[in-house]
């Protein structure tokens, strides 16, 4: 069977991946261009101005730099990150475990699915005042807000991913004497990993919304305080600078999750990129 490789097809590789401009991959150039375009549009919209409450891009960056230098931003993030990190870690760990259990076991699905479907469908912003009745206005209440927003997305995505694991791969594992544990850990979980991680990324983004909502609605602390305080004194450049850092931080975290996924669960995607 020695001449089999002669029937090999060249692996599909879109041309765009190979082209470069001044040594930079063309895709990166486009990505950079897109970001620049958004900033330019922002600057123009601020100069018009479309609203007196809408600052320019350069003004916002100046405010951001100032807050970085005088440490206000670090102090605010130290406050905000506490409930966020605790909430995300709890939602991520238990969310994935509960989601996997739901996908594998009918009883677990029966028990958990209604809870998370209701949570996902409910207007959490309206429920946050209720949280304060139960948990007060401290760290716990804010953590609960993060979990309420992040956990349903993580759980339901994990559950769906596990439920739709390839039946043929599961059959393959069984036919080669795989145990149930091996079937779950070596086939079902890696097979579901892309959707689980998509859920984690969305969950992290939702957790951010949760923590900012909590800081706006429960007690003004951290980044939420930077936003609401600067809005109330009409210092919109500082307010938008704070919003901008939230987007940036969230994007970095989401990118980090993608790296973890590709490196530890789906190495085949690394080459394709």
């Amino acid at each position: 069977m020695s001449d089999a490789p002669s029937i090999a097809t060249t692996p599909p590789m879109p041309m765009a991946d190979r082209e470069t401009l001044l040594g930079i991959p063309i895709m990166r150039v486009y990505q950079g261009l897109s970001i620049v375009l958004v900033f330019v549009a922002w600057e123009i919209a601020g100069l018009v101005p479309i609203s007196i409450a809408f600052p320019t891009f350069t003004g916002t960056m100046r405010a951001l730099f100032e807050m970085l230098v005088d440490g206000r931003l670090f102090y605010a993030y130290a406050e905000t990150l506490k409930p966020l990190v605790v909430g995300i870690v709890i939602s991520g760990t238990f969310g994935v475990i509960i989601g996997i259990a739901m996908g594998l076991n009918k009883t677990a699905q029966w028990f958990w699915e209604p809870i998370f479907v209701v949570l996902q469908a409910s207007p959490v912003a309206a429920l946050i005042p209720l949280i304060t009745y139960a948990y007060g206005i401290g760290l716990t209440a804010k953590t609960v807000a993060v979990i309420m927003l992040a956990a349903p997305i993580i759980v339901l995505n994990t559950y769906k991913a596990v439920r739709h694991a390839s039946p043929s791969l599961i059959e393959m594992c069984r036919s080669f004497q795989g145990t149930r544990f091996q079937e779950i850990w070596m086939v079902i979980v890696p097979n579901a990993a892309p959707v689980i991680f998509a859920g984690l990324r969305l969950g992290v983004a939702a957790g951010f919304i949760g923590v900012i909502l909590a800081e706006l609605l429960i007690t003004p602390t951290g980044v939420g305080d930077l936003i609401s305080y600067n809005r109330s004194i009409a210092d919109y450049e500082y307010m938008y600078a704070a919003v901008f850092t939230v987007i940036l931080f969230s994007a970095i975290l989401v990118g980090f999750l993608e790296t973890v996924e590709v490196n530890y669960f789906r190495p085949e995607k690394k080459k394709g990129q």
Partner: protein
Amino acid sequence: MSVSAAQDNSPKAATDDIVEVRNITKYYSPDVHALSNVNLSFPRGQMTTLLGPSGCGKTTLLKIIAGLLEPTEGDVLVNGKQVHGTGPERAFVFQDFALLPWATVLRNVAFGMELTKQDKREREDRARHYINEVGLAGFENKYPHELSGGMRQRVGLARALAVNSDVLLMDEPFSAVDEQTRRKFQEDLLALLANENKTVIFVTHSIEEAVYVSDQIVMLSPRPGRIHSIIRPEFSRDADPDEIRRDKNYLDTVEAIWADLRKYLD
């Protein structure tokens, strides 16, 4: 017709038949009757094809033999002993390849041995040997999505050979592969098996493929699947593949089976 199968295995059954199925009946649900009272024996070291139109239950029968499906009634015997579930003496080659997309060719081929917790170096050496045998040397570190359909099925075949089972169960292994690749693959498979001393149970809906590769062809009738007849093609396999495909006996056998099966299509 199932009687003729019973006659086949009467005196020497215990020693020469590696796999036997007895009175297999399968209902998927009360009104989906897939197989009805199937009795068959598979001689050791030979290639038996299950042939029939779609919906005749040939894949169901193969999966019952593999232990992936439970029969509603009846027994599967391997080496004279009744078996339940899957076993190390049977290895499966899947129609859709069933390769792990996140694992390299090397890990996919070694996966059966990884599941039985064999030493990593040992299993990778063995996997490399079979990757070489199926003609994929140099592709060890590629991922399935980088391979063509024919090459993916070679990985599936290498994985099944690497676990050293006596029985190879192949479920329409070439149906997802184009015609040219398929012919080449059939020839390669026969050449490879000549040195491997395996018993092969092969499911196909291609008459030419069945006649070309088999020592014994079991024709199944559709819904519910029963044994229609058993044929042993008689032509010399020593000739080269192109001569066999022009051989009169080969062509006559193909025609005879077609004449027999076409009545199910009306």
